[in-house]
């Protein structure tokens, strides 16, 4: 009998606790809505704060937060403070879907901005599209993002990933025939960002009569690149255009140094465009003449770049050279949104989408405009290591130095 009473008491206590908890969440929720309507604009963002992409996810978070501080210091959006709701997608597409569903339909955020990586941007953009949200995104430049033909996507880099190496083709074809390379080798990493731009490059150079002497992809699990470098060297190419991510980019440069092979042109798609890591990985005096592609540089005279770098260094220390480009890309997303809201005088997403399509935006990442599916119309910049520094060399309107021929290894 006593036992039953105790059980009853327990049940009553439990139900009180549950009711109290529910009531408090409901209260908290109404509070949230009330304060939101009164003051701040809530922007929902899902980022990879854990898992495979967490480095870039955190870099993007820094960029977004710096923009938030900047915009709030200047009165916010339409006079309302900006509040970021950043959630973790654990680098998983399942979670990114859940997060944007939650942000849009549960928390009813006013605006959204994009996550890191094409792999997560593609599913996230579809959800934003379904609910009619404008989707300005920093890092989803792969073909699958634009292939979905969504009118709400705006990729905040000068060119889609597939056109990464176009600038090299433009440069080479701008040379008189006698100065062009006769033969070319294309080692490529099997990765949606690394290989496709180089395949495109190969096609264009072949059409121009430059003979392909080596072209092959290697898998991302590869840990030893020496056999590939040996094969490339055996083909004796004038131009080596390597489709890489970071580590393999360093490894290919090092392999060429070890074998003392000097091509006339050496282009390394990624890795060589890292102002901080590349010289420490292969030695600063060996970098001379190596080319790469890039979308953002600390030295760039783009809109707001100096303020961005100053704020970054103030908040996180270091120097401009240490800033991950992803931070700059995320910051640009904020700049674009800010400008579009100012032009449209509203937070209405449908109006914002129309506005974004109609204008050109000046950001730290260069001047951006898009086709109707969000693919940017600009081109990347050809950069080259000259005298131990990474400088833009082509196209000439942004160049700070003339392209040089690659000198022999030291």
């Amino acid at each position, binding site marked *: 009998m006593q036992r039953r009473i105790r059980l009853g008491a327990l049940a009553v206590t439990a139900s009180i606790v549950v009711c109290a908890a529910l009531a408090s969440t409901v209260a908290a929720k109404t509070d949230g809505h009330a304060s939101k309507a009164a003051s701040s604009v809530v922007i929902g963002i899902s*980022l990879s*704060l*854990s*898992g495979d992409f*967490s480095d870039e996810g*955190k870099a993007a978070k820094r960029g977004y937060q710096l923009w938030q501080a900047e915009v709030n210091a200047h009165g916010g959006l339409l006079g309302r403070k900006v509040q970021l709701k*950043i*959630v*973790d*997608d*654990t680098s*998983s*597409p*399942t*979670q990114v*879907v*859940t*997060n944007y*569903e*939650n942000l*849009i*339909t*549960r928390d009813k955020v006013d605006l959204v901005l994009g996550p890191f990586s094409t*792999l997560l941007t*593609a*599913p996230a953009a*579809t959800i934003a599209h*379904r*609910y009619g949200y404008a989707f300005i995104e920093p890092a989803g430049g*792969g*073909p*699958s993002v634009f*292939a*979905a033909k969504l009118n709400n996507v705006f990729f905040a880099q000068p060119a889609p990933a597939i056109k990464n190496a176009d600038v090299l083709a433009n440069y080479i074809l701008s040379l008189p025939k006698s100065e062009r390379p006769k033969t070319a080798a294309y080692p490529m990493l*099997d*990765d*949606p960002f690394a290989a*496709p731009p180089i395949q495109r490059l190969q096609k264009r150079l072949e059409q121009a009569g430059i003979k392909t002497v080596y072209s092959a992809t290697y*898998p*991302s699990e590869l840990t030893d690149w020496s056999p590939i470098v040996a094969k490339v060297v055996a083909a004796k190419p004038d131009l080596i255009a390597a489709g890489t991510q970071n580590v393999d980019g360093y490894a290919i440069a090092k392999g060429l140094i070890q074998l003392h092979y000097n091509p006339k042109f050496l282009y390394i798609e990624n890795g060589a465009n890292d102002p901080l890591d590349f010289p420490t990985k292969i030695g600063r005096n060996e970098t001379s003449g190596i080319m790469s592609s890039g979308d953002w540089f600390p030295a760039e005279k783009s809109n707001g770049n100096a303020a961005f770098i100053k704020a970054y260094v103030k908040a996180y220390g270091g120097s401009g050279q240490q800033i991950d480009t992803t931070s700059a890309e995320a910051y640009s997303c904020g700049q674009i949104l800010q400008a579009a809201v100012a032009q449209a005088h509203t937070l209405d997403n449908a109006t914002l989408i129309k506005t974004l399509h109609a204008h050109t935006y000046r950001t730290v990442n260069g001047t951006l405009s898009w086709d109707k599916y969000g693919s940017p119309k600009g081109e990347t910049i050809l950069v080259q290591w000259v005298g131990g520094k990474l400088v833009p060399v082509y196209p000439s309107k942004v160049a700070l130095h003339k392209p040089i021929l690659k000198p022999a290894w030291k």
Partner: protein
Amino acid sequence: MRIRAVGLARGGTILALLCALPFAFSAHWVVNMFVFTLMYAALAVAWNLFAGYSGYISLGHVAFFGLGAYAEAITFSHTSIGSGYRPFYVLPLVAIGVGLASLPIGWVALRTRAITFAIVTLTMLFVFQNLATNLRSITHGSSGYALPVPTFSVATYERPFYFAMLGILAVALLVSWHVRTSKLGLMLFAIRGDEEKARGLGVRTTGSKLLVFAVSAGLTAMAGAVWAYYLTYIYPQYAVDPLVMIGSVLPVFLGGRGTLWGPVLGAFILVPAQQYLAYRLGASELYLVAYAAVFVVILLVLPRGILPSLGGLVERWRYRGSALAADDELPLQPRIGERAA
């Protein structure tokens, strides 16, 4: 085969409640969460069907999930999806196709026993991931595969996926229930107890194991196919993802291995909790560590799972007065005495 009124009522009620759920809570984020919860519930029940009943731990089932996802993607990349429902109609074909494809794999893997089997299947997971990346002409490799975007109306967009996942879960439960009450179940249970002896007694061990392996693989593939259509993009590392494997094993251990409803209960606790935590704890960056900790705690504290532990309590209670009650919620497991025999 005995159909007990209690079991039938319980099953019917739960399924009816699940059918009503998207109408009662129609907010997108709720239905979205339950789409994934049902997916993991179906994966867990399918995994339990093979691993829970036969005692063989397969760590490569997610390979079939990926196979189903790619089958769906490849089928519909070049054809129109019409009203949007067509990708659901082919699910049985996906199940049969992957089930048949799993037979030779199962045959090789099942030549090994217990822990070697677990390792071989884990290896299989990486082989499939590797194949999905390397067979570029079929899978588009690391660039991923885009499926056509469904044409469902925005207001009830998630519903078709919800009911597809629910349907797969119901089929998986029905098959599990059927296996438990049939001769096949008895054979599996004998294999789990002592395989050598079972074979000595004339149980067709290889045939029984292979049959449930293939059925389980087919069910897993259907969940993969619906998942692919829901996300509209698949990539090798996500379609064959060790974390999805863990996600379908964990509910089984939490709810109770070898039980009928345990995996469902486990999924309904774990998946919403996991999605909510990732959403809420985002800033702490400790998500993976927290997930690993939950994983360890479940294995160490509740090695038998919730339902068997509860069942044990209830059983002990009933023992005081009446005879042992046979219950669906007790794992298919040799009782004392049988084991010693």
